[in-house]
């Protein structure tokens, strides 16, 4: 399936673009997605934390992803 992943802040700078288009096996989990990305972009693994948001909510590591999901990487937030 095809996933589109929105990138913000330092993840956008690490990857070098605001959006990533990936083709991954059906039913891939949040955890598997992160593992793959951290292999391709080792600097992602150096962050204090890295969460995945699915449809505007923080997703659990074992949550399966779907093609229509709005997915984003969430590096450590620093609002306020």
């Amino acid at each position, binding site marked *: 399936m095809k996933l589109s992943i929105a990138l913000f802040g330092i993840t956008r700078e690490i990857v070098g673009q605001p959006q990533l288009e990936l083709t991954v096996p059906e039913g891939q989990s949040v955890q598997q997605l992160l593992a793959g990305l951290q292999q391709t972009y080792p600097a992602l693994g150096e*962050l204090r934390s890295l969460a995945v*948001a699915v449809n505007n909510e923080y997703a659990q590591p074992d949550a399966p992803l779907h093609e229509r999901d709005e997915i984003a990487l969430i590096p450590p937030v*620093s609002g306020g």
Partner: protein
Amino acid sequence: MLIELTDQPIHVAAVLDAVQADGAGAVNSFIGTIRNRSTGRRVVRLHYEAYDQMAVHQLRKVAEQAMERWPMLQKVAVVHRKGTLEIGDVAVVVAVSTPHRAESFAACQYIIDTLKEVVPIWKKEEYEDGTVWVAAHP
């Protein structure tokens, strides 16, 4: 409930007005402004970036959680700025109104503390000799 993410200067008085209610004797507000120093370095300006739709959704969730936890809360307003901010600019305003004052402090503090943990907004501090994404690395 007023929840807003904006790239325009925040009008603090308007945010405070938004929580006025005749049954509310207490209004507590928190205003976060841009400091000229951070961990000892002189800050020139700041850049805030947000995942807009999730940020607004999460801001609303935080406000709703506060209203569940303090059912006497009358009104809540949270306005967060994004874009480039200079020293002294207002980055965030949280305001809550309650009939009694103790809850106004507790609820306002809960909202700003939780906002800083969960709302997808990121700030990059600009110094004279470089920039850093705040809190990104251990």
